[in-house]
């Protein structure tokens, strides 16, 4: 079970910056960039989920559409890529493959009924008295 208050400060994580520029039909160059956090060695489950959540949003923002790009970039989100490389080796060609890899990786970290447990926790959560509204934001 993940604690309601995260066990890390997202601002403390080192980040990798991705930039790309595209020229539209009118010849105007649009630059897009995004910074994504890196999971340190022995990073917690919360960190993994935080990075995945950020990465999923970056996929739309940066318009990454191919499996190899997704797998390669996601591998950069790990300080130690050894574990990721082993899992990713089998599925690197399709976007669907990337989702399978992520799912497989998460499955190694969580129990098989994590979804139900987490949903129940979310619905019965109690705000800690000392938790300020700012701390409830990411």
């Amino acid at each position: 079970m993940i604690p309601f208050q995260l066990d890390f400060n997202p601002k403390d994580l080192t980040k990798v910056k991705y930039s790309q520029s595209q020229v539209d039909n009118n010849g105007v160059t649009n630059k897009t960039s995004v910074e994504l956090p890196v999971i340190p060695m022995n990073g917690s489950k919360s960190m993994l989920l935080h990075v995945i959540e950020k990465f999923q949003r970056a996929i739309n923002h940066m318009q990454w559409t191919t499996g190899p790009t997704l797998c390669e970039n996601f591998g950069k989100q790990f300080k130690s890529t050894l574990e990721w490389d082993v899992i990713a080796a089998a599925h690197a060609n399709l976007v669907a493959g990337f989702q399978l890899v992520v799912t497989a990786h998460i499955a190694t970290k969580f129990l098989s009924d994590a979804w139900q447990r987490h949903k129940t926790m979310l619905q019965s959560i109690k705000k800690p008295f000392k938790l300020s509204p700012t701390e409830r934001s990411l």
Partner: protein
Amino acid sequence: MTLIRFYNSILEVLPGYPGAANGPARTLSNYELKFALFEALPQSYQKTFRLAGFKLSVESLADMEAYFEDQYMLDPAVAGQQSNNRGREQRTLNRVTIGGRPPFLSK
């Protein structure tokens, strides 16, 4: 992004989702999230929350009343010439006064 929205979004990736085709929604709906937020508050705060919600409803009701006032209680001859930003006093002056009652109640 708030913590509660973050926790809701990660429901999409956690293992153990029971329904592939006809199962429950994968994440909580906005209504369920609001309910969870409300339930997360201590009871003393819940009362304040309810009052705030009630006050908002009352204010909306006041807006609706003003709207109906405009629609049904203005002199039809003048109504077409009215601008949308007139003051409340102006609206009061232009009310139809058939026996002091709104048109749909007169007779």
